[in-house]
């Protein structure tokens, strides 16, 4: 087995008196889809916000390819190769697809000190990425506001790929999608992993998770309560972990 791309050790997050996460250890590997499951408020979102550099951890450390890192902004995480596709998709509806894919990291050439956009190059690159992902979007100049939910996910994935992301975090990518679009996004998720990306998928949908994930981690009340290879578990067991009905969780929660 390859060395993990990212190791999280003892990650904790407190908001004032509220403990949102405590003592989370997790390894994330390249080429693998890791699913994070858990009820609302279980700490999944807090955890990925820490990975994405949107919140600093209160405790613990993140290690990327053996090197400890500290993120003070989403930009730091992005330059470490982590791209996050948030549930509310951080896309600007008023800008075009290619503008969105490059937003914050535009291609430019300097003329007399003025950074001019290289629009043609950006369009060409986005065209290539959309074809590669088989995203069925013909015009990279279309405004993102005119796209369907699935197409927006594809744009967000393009954006992640364009940042040369080594780890792509997807927060409930199919939550608002119709069935056909959901299929497409799940296929995209697999394709990302096949390209060698590490993928973290947050989902509420257990059948979806069993379809695409290689490994499944369950959060409950701010703690990691289970980690299973998909091939070694089943939906019933995972549900028991999520709801706290599983004997292991009961034992753990009694101990604390």
């Amino acid at each position, binding site marked *: 087995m390859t060395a993990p791309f990212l190791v999280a050790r003892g990650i904790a997050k407190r908001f004032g008196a509220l403990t949102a996460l405590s003592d989370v250890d997790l390894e994330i590997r390249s080429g693998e889809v890791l699913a994070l499951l858990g009820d609302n408020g279980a700490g999944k979102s807090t955890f990925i916000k820490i990975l*994405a550099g*949107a919140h600093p951890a209160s405790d613990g450390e993140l290690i990327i390819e053996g090197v400890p890192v500290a993120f003070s*902004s*989403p*930009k730091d995480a*992005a330059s470490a190769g982590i791209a*996050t596709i*948030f549930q*509310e998709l*951080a*896309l*600007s*509806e*008023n*800008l075009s697809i290619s*503008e969105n894919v490059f*937003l*914050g*990291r*535009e291609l*430019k050439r300097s003329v007399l000190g*003025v*950074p*001019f*956009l290289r629009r043609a190059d950006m369009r060409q690159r986005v065209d290539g990425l959309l074809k590669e992902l088989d995203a069925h979007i013909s015009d990279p100049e279309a405004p993102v506001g005119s796209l369907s939910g699935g197409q927006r996910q594809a744009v967000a994935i393009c954006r992640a790929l364009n940042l040369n992301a080594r780890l792509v975090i997807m927060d409930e990518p199919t939550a608002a999608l119709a069935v056909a679009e959901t299929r497409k996004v799940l296929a995209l998720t697999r394709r990302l992993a096949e390209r060698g990306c590490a993928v973290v998928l947050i989902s509420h949908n257990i059948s979806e998770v069993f379809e695409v994930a290689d490994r499944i981690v369950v959060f409950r009340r701010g703690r990691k309560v289970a980690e299973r290879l998909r091939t070694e578990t089943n939906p019933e067991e995972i549900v028991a972990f999520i709801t706290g009905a599983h004997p292991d969780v009961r034992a753990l929660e009694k101990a604390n």
Partner: protein
Amino acid sequence: MNGREWSLLIACILAIIVFSVASPYYATSGNAGTVLRNSIELLLVGLGMMLLLAMGGIDVSVGVVMGLAAIGVGRALGAGVDPVLTALVGPLTGALLGLLTAAVIVLGRVPAIVGTLGLFGVYRTAIFVLLGGQWLSGLPTGLTVLLGTTILGLPVAAWVIALAYLAVWIALRRTPFGLHLLAIGNSEEKARLSGIPVVKVRFATFIVSGALTGLAATFYVANYRNVEMTVGSTLALDAIAAVVLGGTSILGGKCSLVGTVLGVLLLRILQNGLLLTGVPSLWQPVVTGGLLIGVLGFEVLSNRLSLSRLGWASK
């Protein structure tokens, strides 16, 4: 040009036709010059206001910022400072005040409308104190070259305005700054998550808008050669109305340069025409305010502005 811009152009032409019929003083080259001269400040202030609105910001203190910059220009003019330096006092003062505005709003995390309203009060009093209750009047003619001199057939003022619009067009459509500004106008949180330097862009925009407002002050002093106590009292209303008329979204994320120019011209054509047809100037803000409310009302009704974004959705 889009539909909105064509409608504005047609409205301008219709207004000119109506006023020409209504007043014998209207359709004269002298009056056309007056309308254009009266549009200079608003074209510059409107350009800055357009950037701010597109970014999801606003500045209701532009009138008093122009007033303060005008006092600076007027004092320099009165003291016999070199005309080029005198002209620069306006944009420099404006940029400095823009920096201060940005510091209050961006670093203080105050909503732009509240922060600039507070600054409006402070600056208004500063104008009274600086002027000592008297007009700055009878200033020398050192700056009239800006309006009187022509280069290749166009007055200096026209060149300055054209250059300002060209520079803003390049910044908006050809550089990352424009994308960042529009992304912030769409959603500041999403822009931040996309790795856009939100604080830097917001500061830059307030400073640029301040500089444009200060540049307007230079032309104001060149044009009127006095600064009165109530200087700029309807400027914020005029600027916001002209820019919104022009198709820039009051909620941010969308703007139009051509629309801003046409919005300014329509406003000034209406104000001038009403004056010449005997409507007292007291009524001008009523017309401007009515237009602003009318346009926003129309946009809400035609669903261009989503009610939920205005916070009116029933919950």
